[in-house]
């Protein structure tokens, strides 16, 4: 007996609206169809009406968690068009913040995956430890999310000497916790039962489906923009690309935990070798005509921005490809043949961020209304609806 189970757009296992239509046969998935489009904000269209400075902040709001990666990618693409040379110190600060964001994202992911597995305690612990890194980011940038650090021509805030000392303490704590989670995730029998051998994505399939980021690296493919095409200060910092050959959710977990440790090493090295100097150069408002592409390794995978300018202060076309869209087909492949109970864990495995994946559509053509509703309007609408429905 096959029956269809809708999964989303609202479901407790999903943080963001996406719809999967599963065909289930005896608790096993035989077919899956994804449907996007529930959180469209029309960012690529809005971009045609904003100037380049304003777009830095719009790019930050593509995704709440990997906001710096998008802002960095956008800043780089504009700098390339402007032919700006940004100061060395700014490059190092960019690297540090990008890696801190990676740590933050991976802790968040660990907690969410634990929650999908029903492991509340690990969820609480991972998010408690994530607080440490968020406080660090708060200290550096003045904000807990959407840091507003990267800008065209450098960064907006410096990391002074006293901050470095406090950062090192926090980094030690985070490293100890990462070691602890490695121990937990390799030892705990219930975690192993739920992750090992679940959601298999073979290396050949990962290559064919263009998987990126930790999803690809957990299938043994060393695909990392930081190593392939060094941006910011990655060319000067030694680090290793973490890969695992398990191809399952457990490997994705180990890749991310090991990346936390690797990121901590990168931050330490960058803090030690940070050159002195200015952090920002002035950028003109108008951008000369041209096309440029910039790639950044966001915590979730490769991030690509394409920008075409037409000589004014507003871009002609700004194309964003967030990592989740690249991994969505791999996810559908992983979900084939998976037990119904494992669906949330496998979906969490690629670290989906639906808001990143879809940015384009505009205004719902059906409603023909562009009106902001206040609380009392909603109240009235709800009452009317009920009255009509039940004939009160």
């Amino acid at each position, binding site marked *: 007996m096959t029956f269809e189970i809708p999964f989303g757009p609202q479901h407790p296992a999903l943080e963001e609206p996406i719809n999967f239509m599963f065909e289930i046969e005896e608790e096993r998935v035989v077919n899956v169809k994804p*449907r*996007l*489009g529930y959180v*469209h904000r*029309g960012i*690529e*269209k*809005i971009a*045609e*009406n904003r100037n380049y400075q304003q777009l830095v902040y719009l790019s930050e709001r593509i995704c709440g968690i990997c906001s710096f990666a998008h802002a960095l990618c956008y800043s780089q693409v504009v700098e*390339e068009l402007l032919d700006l040379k940004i100061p060395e110190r700014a490059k190092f600060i960019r690297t540090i913040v990008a890696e801190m964001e990676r740590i933050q994202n991976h802790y968040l992911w660990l907690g969410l995956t634990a929650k999908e597995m029903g492991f509340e305690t690990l969820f609480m612990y991972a998010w408690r430890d994530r607080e440490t890194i968020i406080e660090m980011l708060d200290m550096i940038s003045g904000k807990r999310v959407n840091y507003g650090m990267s800008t065209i021509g450098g960064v907006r805030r410096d990391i002074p000497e006293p901050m470095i000392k406090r950062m090192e303490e926090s980094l030690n704590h985070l490293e100890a916790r990462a070691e602890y989670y490695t121990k937990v995730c390799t030892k705990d029998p219930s975690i192993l039962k739920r992750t090992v051998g679940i959601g298999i994505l073979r290396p050949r399939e990962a*290559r*064919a*489906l*263009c*998987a*990126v980021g930790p999803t690809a690296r957990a299938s043994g493919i060393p*695909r990392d923009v930081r190593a*392939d*095409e060094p941006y910011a200060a990655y060319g000067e910092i030694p680090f290793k690309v973490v890969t695992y050959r398990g191809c399952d959710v457990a490997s994705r977990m180990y890749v991310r935990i090991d990346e936390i440790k690797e990121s901590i090493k990168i931050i330490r090295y960058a803090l030690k070798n940070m050159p002195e100097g200015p952090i920002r150069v002035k950028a003109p408002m108008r951008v000369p005509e041209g*096309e*440029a*592409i910039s*790639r950044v390794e966001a915590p979730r995978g*490769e991030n*690509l921005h*394409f920008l*075409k300018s037409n000589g004014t202060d507003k871009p*002609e*076309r700004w*194309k964003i*490809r967030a990592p989740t*869209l*690249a991994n*969505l*087909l*791999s996810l559908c492949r992983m979900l084939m043949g998976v037990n119904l109970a494992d669906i949330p864990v496998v979906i969490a495995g690629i670290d989906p961020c639906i808001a990143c994946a*879809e940015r*384009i*559509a*505009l*205004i*719902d*053509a*059906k409603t*023909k*209304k*562009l*009106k902001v509703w206040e609380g009392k309007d909603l109240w009235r609408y709800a009452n009317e609806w009920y009255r009509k429905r039940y004939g009160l």
Partner: protein
Amino acid sequence: MRRSEIRKQLRIRARNIIVQRDRRFFVNIEKKDLKRAIRRLMQMKNYTHLSTITALDVGSMIEVIYHVAFTDALVSVKVQTSKDEPIIPSIVDLIPGVALYEREIHDLFGVEFEGNPDLSPLLLPDGWPEGVYPLRKWWSVDRVLSKLGGKR
């Protein structure tokens, strides 16, 4: 990667290859050569994946750019098609991972990808009118707002 390598592999004229900077190549090709070009690029060493497909509205034409990633470069293959008859051969049979990108462009620019088995709406809501493509330049924000009677 160097210009000559790409030229030799794709067997096209050198002036069709623009080297923007180190690691960045733009290649202009004809629509009919697209599949062959992508297949040949895939056979080159250091090929990793196809990053994404971008579509642009350039006046009377729609330009579709395939960003092919290598470990040491990013080659962007440009194809143009007319707006009246926007048909481009699909490369899903070569790289299955581009299915969603092609569907996205089909939604937003109305480009038909010949050979893609599933071009159902991915992003746009159900009941979206036929022949309306939100990312074409015709569909500007001001135009929409004036139609809806709102103001900026």
